[in-house]
């Protein structure tokens, strides 16, 4: 059994019983996808909503919700997953600093875009732990489908 770590702006897929981990999500969003029948899981750690808004979108598709999610699905299909069986759990999208004139508000926009993309791909969201003002570490166990959230001051939550 392997423990695969996904860095910021990256994604990985695995077969059960491997575990997918991403540390300290702030405004970023972690997207866990699972085909439980095929035993194939995937985790994407996106930074920004939209690849077309900046200049380097094409060069780093795994950083953006609109390009990372289709890529994650494709990688899972290569391991034998079927698109129609995919289910999602998502976490992150916090606002780490309370800034009164926050023009960015990136956490909320990330979550909104992830939901839009999952709806477009017709993937139901079974659970989410998003928003608020704290960081989250995410463990995803494709074997059981459990998404475990660890926060610095709020203990552990299983979704």
């Amino acid at each position, binding site marked *: 059994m392997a423990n695969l770590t996904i860095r910021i702006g990256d994604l990985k897929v695995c077969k059960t019983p491997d575990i997918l981990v991403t540390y*300290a999500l702030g405004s970023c969003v972690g997207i866990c996808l699972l085909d439980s029948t095929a035993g194939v899981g995937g985790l994407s750690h996106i930074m920004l909503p939209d690849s077309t808004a900046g200049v380097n979108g094409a060069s780093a598709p795994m950083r953006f919700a609109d390009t990372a999610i289709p890529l994650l699905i494709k990688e899972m299909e290569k391991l034998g997953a079927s698109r129609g069986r995919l289910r999602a759990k998502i976490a992150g999208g916090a606002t780490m*600093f309370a800034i009164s004139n926050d023009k960015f508000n990136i956490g909320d926009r990330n979550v909104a875009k992830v939901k839009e993309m999952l709806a477009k791909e017709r993937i139901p969201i079974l659970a989410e732990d998003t928003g608020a003002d704290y960081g989250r570490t995410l463990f995803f166990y494709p074997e059981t489908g459990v998404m475990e959230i660890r926060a610095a001051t709020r203990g552990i939550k299983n979704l």
Partner: protein
Amino acid sequence: MIKNYEDLSPVAIDCLKEIGNIGSGSAANALSQMLGKTVTMRVPDVSVLDYQHVIEQMGGPEKVITGILVHLNGDIQGMIMFLLEDSFAQVVLSTFLGKENVFSAIKEMGNIMAGSYLQAIGTLTGLTIDMSVPAMTVDMMGAIMSVPIVEYSEIGDKVLFINDGFVIDGVNIKSNIILIPDMKSLYILMKKLGVAEDG
């Protein structure tokens, strides 16, 4: 024109380091006044590092630290972020305990230190730099660092990292500062300092 931090010449990097040195000296003075204690400064370690390196060097993504974020406006746009480890907060605590809200004391300290850095840069360059009210949080370092990583992802994954060592009443404390001017501001800064690669 330089497009990201990777394009900086060795001369430009030296120049940024010098800004870090001068800022740290100025911050040590401010700190001494605020705490009413003798503050001596070790030579700061100033480097241009990638974010992952900064996070690893400071103890990994899940280490809990205090982050203070200040946005820069005016001639220079960007942000300064203070990453304070426990020892730093302890000194503030021991000084201000019972006097006022510790959270706001630490925030005020971030405010004063950011101000002294900016004053040093302003004096050196003749630029006017305004700063936002500091925002503060205590959380996992990875989550705190994701704020500049995301906001400046187009610039690249490198930042100016200043590792200050202060000695306050015989106690060694470390403060880590990251300074991120946006690319246009970095160019303005380099030009003012006479080390811009072109124009």
